[in-house]
């Protein structure tokens, strides 16, 4: 009999809870930005609902997985799902990298009169096209949004904290791979040690990143520092957010390893998170080269 059985789950409440959560979160955020008093509280409520939903939904999936309800086909579906989710994240970062390249190569040089933009210097009198320190010769220029520009007094120091962070994150990729090998060899204590090392490196990265933000901010590099400040904070900010998510996911995996959820040949949860961690690693390399270094 070649009869193949499929896994089809029952109805679920989690998605509608998630939709309500993100809607309250976003509506709260928009109101908060417009100075509405209940905006922030709505954000907190929406965020709490989303966290509740994630715990409930993913907890249910973990339970089903542990109880052996999934077959290899479900495992493959999860793999396809996770890989293409990561690809969509890559494209999200690509939008911001695209903005960085465009500003660096096209809009800033053009504003200073390069190319065939004959009239630009007259329109943008006194524009100083120094990458990282975009400014006008007249101080106190305000952006179109009415915010005064903050001009950095110093360039970012590539070979200080950013280089150290690169080393930390690359190393965390290595320790995570060791953990994976140990998992395949069913050596749980080693898996736990390497996972802990990975999480520690990730958290250290985040700590140094916060310190680096402190330096940059004190030196005047802010969101309002023109296009370099915009791309700097949006790229590193979204990356730091993803590292935070990744570290939380790794902690969950650590907990699940301790519970003995994974076996040598069935541990998609671990692998999915590992892919995600390597993805934030690769994004950081792009950041280090294009935001901090070149």
């Amino acid at each position, binding site marked *: 009999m070649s*009869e*193949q059985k*499929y*896994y*089809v*789950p*029952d*109805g*679920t*409440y989690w*998605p*509608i809870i998630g*939709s*309500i959560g*993100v809607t309250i979160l*976003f*509506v709260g*955020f*928009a109101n908060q*930005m417009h100075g509405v008093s209940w905006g922030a509280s709505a954000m907190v409520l929406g965020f709490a609902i989303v966290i509740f939903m994630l715990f409930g939904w993913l907890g249910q999936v973990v339970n089903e997985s542990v109880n*052996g*309800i999934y*077959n*290899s086909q479900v495992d*493959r*579906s*999860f793999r*396809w*799902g996770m890989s293409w*989710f990561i*690809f*969509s994240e890559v*494209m*999200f970062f*690509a*939008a*911001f990298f*695209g*903005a960085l390249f*465009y*500003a660096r190569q*096209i*809009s*800033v040089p053009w*504003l200073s009169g390069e190319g065939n933009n004959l009239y630009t210097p007259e329109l943008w009198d006194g524009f100083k096209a120094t990458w990282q320190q*975009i400014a*006008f010769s007249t101080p106190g220029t305000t952006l*179109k*949004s009415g*915010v005064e*520009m903050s001009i950095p007094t110093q360039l970012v120091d590539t070979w200080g904290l950013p280089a150290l962070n690169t080393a930390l994150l690359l190393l965390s990729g290595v320790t995570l791979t060791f953990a994976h090998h140990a998992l395949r060899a069913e050596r749980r204590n080693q898996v736990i040690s390497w996972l802990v090392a990975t999480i520690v490196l990730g958290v250290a990265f985040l700590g140094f990143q916060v310190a680096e933000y402190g330096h940059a901010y004190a030196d005047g590099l*802010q*969101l*309002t520092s*023109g*296009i370099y*400040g*915009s791309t700097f*904070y*949006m790229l590193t900010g979204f990356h730091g957010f993803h590292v935070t998510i990744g570290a939380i996911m790794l902690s969950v995996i650590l907990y699940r390893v301790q519970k003995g959820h994974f076996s040598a040949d069935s541990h998609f949860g671990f692998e999915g998170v590992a892919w995600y961690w390597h993805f934030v690693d690769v994004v950081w390399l792009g950041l280090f080269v294009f935001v901090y270094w070149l």
Partner: protein
Amino acid sequence: MTTATATIPHGVHHHGPEKGLMRWIKTTNHKDIGSLYMWFAFAMLLIGGALAMGIRAELLQPGMQLMEPQFFNQLTTMHGLIMVFGAIMPAFVGLGNWLIPMMIGAPDMALPRMNNWSFWILPFAGGILLSTFFMEGGAPAFGWTFYAPLSTTFAPDSTDFFIFAVHLLGFSSIMGAINIIATVLNMRAPEMKLMDMPLFVWTWLITSFLLIGAMPVLAGVVTMMLTDRNFGTAFFDATGGGDPVMFQHIFWFFGHPEVYIMILPAFGITSHIIPTFARKPLFGYSSMVYATASIAFLSYIVWAHHMFLTGMPVAGGLYFMYATMLIAVPTGVKVFNWVATMWRGSMTFEAPMLWTLSFVFLFTIGGFSGLMLGIAPADIQYHDTYFVVAHFHYVLVTGALWAIIAATLYWLPKWTGKMYNESLAKIHFWWAVISVNILFFPQHFLGLAGMPRRIPDYSLQFADFNLISSIGGFAFGASFFLLTYIVVDCIRNGKPVSARPWKGAKGLEWTLDAKAPYHSFNTPPSRALIEAESQHSA
């Protein structure tokens, strides 16, 4: 060895879906979710259509009659956004949900819970979007393309709600696309090779890659808008070294794949309906697959043909012009194949076929006007005129929407087990196809004569064609009442049909019961069945 096969919990075969509202909120079933998508899309189509009626009413005569210019711009903006993100895209996802598992011999989608979420985000996103009409300063009024700085420096507060609505719509699309990829690649009957897949499945698979590549970029660009508006960044502000034109580059990097997201599944539908009613296998199956893939690839590298007037370097203009022209080649392959499929076929002209034939003809008109717009020097004349409006309504209304209506009528018997009223459907078709041409064809002339788009008033020489266009618009709008009646009448009073109501139809979905069972295939179909039902078997 898959020991852990125990599944289909709680005897889905025995008691089927839950009762009442909870069935629809909790559902993980591809057919339920497909229906939800289709009804949501239809509701949004009617809302978007009502806004269009407002636009055409104001444009009936020169001069300002009914509304403030600002409100007119809100109508055009929201009409575009609702139709693109609320009607056309969800309708195709709904069709994909309904049809893909049946066509590939699967019981359901690969990730059914996520499938539920990708639908149930939509009503919330749509609600946020529509609520902007009632906010201070009104709804967004900067056009559906929301160019900076109109959407950053000069936009109302409601723009931030619009931004979050777009984020939610993006989540929904990305999850839907991931689900379709996982379903097609992993839930396909083991005996079905990729090149056995029906073309609707192929086109949706390729569309999914477009969605996953493009929607995150849209999320990125609206995020930049958000921070430019609220947090002092300077992405689109030249004072800080940014550039409003950069907005257009990033937007159209999303926007051009987006137009193929809205048409590739329509190509798939057409490639099913024409062989059925010509009673011949599809001509050039594999070339159809390769042409679809080529169009998808090209769609990523032609985006700046929307921006010829932004002052790009001549080399850039030439590149984007020639790359755009290239798309005509695979599209031409498709049109040729459809015509060749009909060549010496035993053709009959039931309503789905009528819609499809007019799709081929009218979409080709839209394609040709697209080619005209793609010629950089000519575009200087056409840019932002009604010629552009005519062009994209020919590809989106008589293209995408036509295929959706054709697909609805074609597969309605399989969804309901009943047949719609053929004579009413024919009356509806002729009503719609005549009125839509009265509506949109004169807009070509208006555009060539220089009437700009997104303008509530116009000079006197445009009056006659606008009057004709508006009359066509009201007639076309009214035709949707008849469509609603036809569909509801089919569901309620339709005559029961056999499992294969169209004699020439091929495809695994027609091997299921007349009204497709709640879970499509619980055991995968055999190789013999797949071969007998494939699009290349005679």
